[in-house]
């Protein structure tokens, strides 16, 4: 296990009131796994990320990155890379190559190794042509890619990405998504927070949903979606139903949603329905599947 956090608690005092920012948050991420940490604004995502990164001390609980506690053992930080929210991770007056060089040495690498890895990363991230451009003059998408490169220069085992696609255009978002997949495929554990649930659904192997400081759900993405998906099937035809078939289908308990769309909620009746439809051309048969947005809203509202 690369990351283990156990019952993290953090409270703040605000105008005399004690506010629980994070309560009993436990997470585990294995090598090569992408975990998405989802929650409404102020739910405790960034607080948890900062506790994991050693930037914020928990009131209770512990964090281990490859069995090292970043709050007690400074060397644990060698195993961690982080891109924190916004465009606040780089020196804007330096170029990508200079940022990589500086932060690489700051993470404990020798200048020679930093040079080699910078070259590889700039090529891999398709930014070699911008290596000598001041970061402040780069597009937001490029800045984010440089921030990810900087977080990867020391080849961390755990990568924390706080809202990595926030404010990026479609093309840059796709590039970042592709990079996340590649980085995970090389064995790095990734914890990302995002408000873009479609991205989380696409990238994450595991989903943790946090609300009001508490993790209300943590599961493998496909299990979560399966759990919230119904057993009904949607059938779409290329042609309209004739009245005789329509009547027979209704007798079988089929919902006729439009002239060409049916919904079969009784699985036992599916093959009878298909037999009745024969030989009409079928455009699509699909099992109804919940999406992460519906699941997220349902869970958060229920709570």
């Amino acid at each position: 296990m690369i990351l283990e956090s156990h019952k993290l608690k953090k409270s703040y005092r605000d105008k005399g009131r004690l506010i629980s920012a994070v309560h009993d948050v436990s997470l585990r991420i294995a090598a090569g796994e992408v975990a998405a940490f989802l929650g409404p604004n102020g739910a405790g995502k960034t607080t948890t990320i900062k506790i994991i990164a050693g930037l914020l001390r928990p009131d209770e609980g512990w964090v281990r990155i490859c069995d090292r506690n970043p709050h007690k053992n400074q060397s644990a930080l060698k195993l961690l890379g982080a891109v924190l929210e916004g465009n606040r991770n780089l020196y804007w007056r330096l170029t990508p190559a200079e940022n990589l060089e500086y932060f690489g040495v700051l993470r404990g690498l020798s200048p020679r190794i930093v040079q080699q890895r910078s070259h590889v990363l700039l090529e891999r991230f398709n930014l070699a042509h911008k290596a000598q451009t001041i970061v402040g003059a780069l597009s937001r998408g490029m800045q984010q890619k440089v921030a990810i490169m900087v977080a990867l220069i020391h080849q961390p085992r755990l990568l924390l990405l706080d809202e990595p696609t926030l404010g990026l255009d479609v093309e840059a978002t796709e590039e970042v998504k592709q990079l996340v997949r590649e980085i995970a495929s090389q064995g790095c554990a990734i914890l990302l927070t995002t408000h873009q649930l479609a991205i989380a659904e696409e990238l994450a192997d595991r989903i943790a949903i946090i609300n009001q400081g508490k993790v209300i759900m943590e599961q493998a993405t496909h299990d979560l979606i399966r759990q919230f998906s119904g057993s009904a099937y949607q059938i779409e035809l290329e042609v309209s139903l004739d009245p005789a078939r329509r009547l027979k289908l209704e007798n079988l308990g089929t919902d006729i949603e439009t002239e060409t769309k049916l919904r079969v909620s009784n699985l036992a009746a599916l093959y009878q329905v298909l037999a009745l439809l024969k030989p009409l051309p079928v455009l699509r048969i699909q099992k109804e599947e919940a999406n992460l947005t519906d699941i997220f809203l349902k869970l958060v509202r229920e709570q």
Partner: protein
Amino acid sequence: MNLIWLFGAELKRGWILQRRYVVETIALMIGLTLVFCGLLVSTQNLVGPDVQLGDRLDALVVSYVLWSLSLFIMGNIAGELQQEAQTGTLEQLFLSPIRAAQLLIIRALANLAPQLVINLAILILIMAITGNWLSFSLFALPPLITVLLSAYGLSLVLGSLALLFKKVQQVLAVFQFLLFFMLMAPMETWTGPSYLLGWLLPITPSAGLLRNVISYGAPLDWILVLLALLNSALYLGLGLLLFHWAERKAKKYGGLGGY
């Protein structure tokens, strides 16, 4: 080895920024020289045109350049901490396996050489304008080192405030005048209890010793150098302690991010 590499990286970063933003450095040098000219004209106005400043002008020049050097050091530690909190890179610095206080000291040491060059240029400009050329000896080095140690200590104290409260521009602005007083205070001419009290002030005893050597050509009293070293070590230690405390507090209350 890591710290040596970091020193090299800081040296390079500082050099790149100085070279890339050379206009800012030149403007700062001219600004500081002009402020001295204003100070000199006001002083001459106060004492009257017939009074020759003589050795006191030398003392004024030495104190002023020390003040400017100390401001650079403070800007380098407290000012940069505040700026990094503002631009957001501060959290990335704290994600390093190297401790923040170590990093700041190494950064300050790496920037010392260019700062000394800049301040030497200011000194030469001032000497050329006043026509008053100071003579330097190697004996000026020990008190200069203690001045630097004190300046680092005070910078760490201010850095601690920057870490905890972020917006410390007002404090830094007021502190510049306080520092000006501490560097200008003619402790070497004080007697009795005020002289003894002077030894407790930060940076003042070291500045007095340096003035004595450069402006008045006095021989170096090694006992006083030792006392000045103790004084600067005390303030450096205080700065380091406060910084560690502020770092712990900032991590407890989430003070590293946001501005």
